[in-house]
């Protein structure tokens, strides 16, 4: 099993997301998505830089995890 590593820069993350977009929907659609992919990468990077305390579990449905 390979070790999970988060992208180190926005450029790397944009590249990763764009490659996936190309494989799913082709070059033309991936190009059309560049603006929102860039915005998306900003949000994802912000999350990566602010990870919570390791014991924090995700909340998927509030009422089951009060």
């Amino acid at each position, binding site marked *: 099993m390979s070790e999970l590593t988060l992208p180190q820069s926005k450029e790397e993350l944009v590249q990763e997301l764009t490659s*996936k977009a190309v494989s*799913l929907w082709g070059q033309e659609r991936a190009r059309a998505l560049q603006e929102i992919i860039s915005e*998306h990468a900003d949000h994802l990077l912000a999350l*990566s830089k602010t990870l919570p*305390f390791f014991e924090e579990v995700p*909340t998927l449905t*509030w009422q089951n995890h009060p």
Partner: protein
Amino acid sequence: MADLHKLTIAEASSEIAEGKLSSVSLVECFLRRIDQLEPSLKAWVTIDKAAVTETAAQLDRELNTKGPRSPLHGIPVGIKDIYYTAGMKTTACSKVYADFVPTYDATSVARLKEAGAIVLGKTVTTEFAAGDPPPTVNPWNSAHTPGGSSSGSAVAVAVRMCPGAMGSQTGGSIIRPSSYNGIVGLKPTFGRISCYGVIPVAWSLDTIGPLVNCIEDAAIMLQALAGYDPKDPGSSEEPVPDYRRALDQIDTPPRIGLIKDFFFVRSDPEVQKHTEEAAQLLAKGGAQVEEVSLPPSFATAADVQWTINNVECAAYHEESFRSRADDYSNRLRERIEVGLLTPATHYIQAQRLRRVYRREMDALARQWDVLLTPTTPTPAPRDLSTTGDPVFQSPWTSCGLPTVTVPSGLSPSTGLPLGIQLAASSFAEARLLAVARWCDRTLNVHLTPPQVS
């Protein structure tokens, strides 16, 4: 009786219960309003006039023999077109669901019907309650967006085509259009009202609630809607208090935490000044108003919201999107696509951060009767390609706390409505509504678009 359309739910309810007004007269009045105003405002998707009138007649007969079921007996309401309505089309204003006719009612619709409310019709939503603009027109100024995604519900209530309507909020879709149209909108605590049978945007964010003309009407509608539903895994077992009675149980002026962090920085100067003046009026009325700071986790609230919203939206639409991508409008399509591109770990990290965020925001809210912010950074934008910015409402949807918007005046520069947004700790809707009514009475602002006068 003249001007029936101007009655609030509470007023119409009293008239009906006392036998001074029939439900048939009331629905016929609103159907005439719809005939008159709908061609220019485009707030409705489906209306079955014959069924509405027949249901009203049945409820009138029932009233004579058994009395009213609840304060909603015989009251017509609009239902956003993402709610399942048995036998009536539920299109989500999309090509994908254009011909969908559910075989059952959403739990919320069933509860409204059980309470004696009448489904007047289905109101326009933005496509799948996402960000593409609706056909609906802002009654205050047609060059400005009416807001969304509960666009039709907000406009229908504002111009009195119905006294109340249901909306939904994943970002800001109840509170923002309510504010843009000068009415009251209530987004309850996540899980307070069942979402079963409501087409989702994002399961862990979606919250449904009423759009109405006064706080008392919000309490009346919430009473019928709130409560546990085993069909919705997000539904809460928290007991349901008597919301209408609680409106009168506020014996001292409230303690209000004014949040300027972020909310004032992101507001235009006019909104800053307006909110400051509203807070001063509330203080003058006796409220204890103090400035409070947001917790550290607020810093990533928008990133958390964005990520969860897009990924869950993509998950819901994944199957139909594979074969019908071209049937989705551009903004929604893009959001689905970035959702599909998102690594699973980022989604989980967002949900972990959100748990911290909710805990910190709830702790902040528990220190005050309510927290106060401007509802929107600006009045409704003069831009029909958008439904406005959800930036002031989304943080509350993400942490699940209840919010209400109260009309607070008109923008001097545009003449469009402005509102204040009040938030409370989780499941404190009774306190939230009581304080909202106190604020409403203290500000004493009544906004009606030109079509109502």
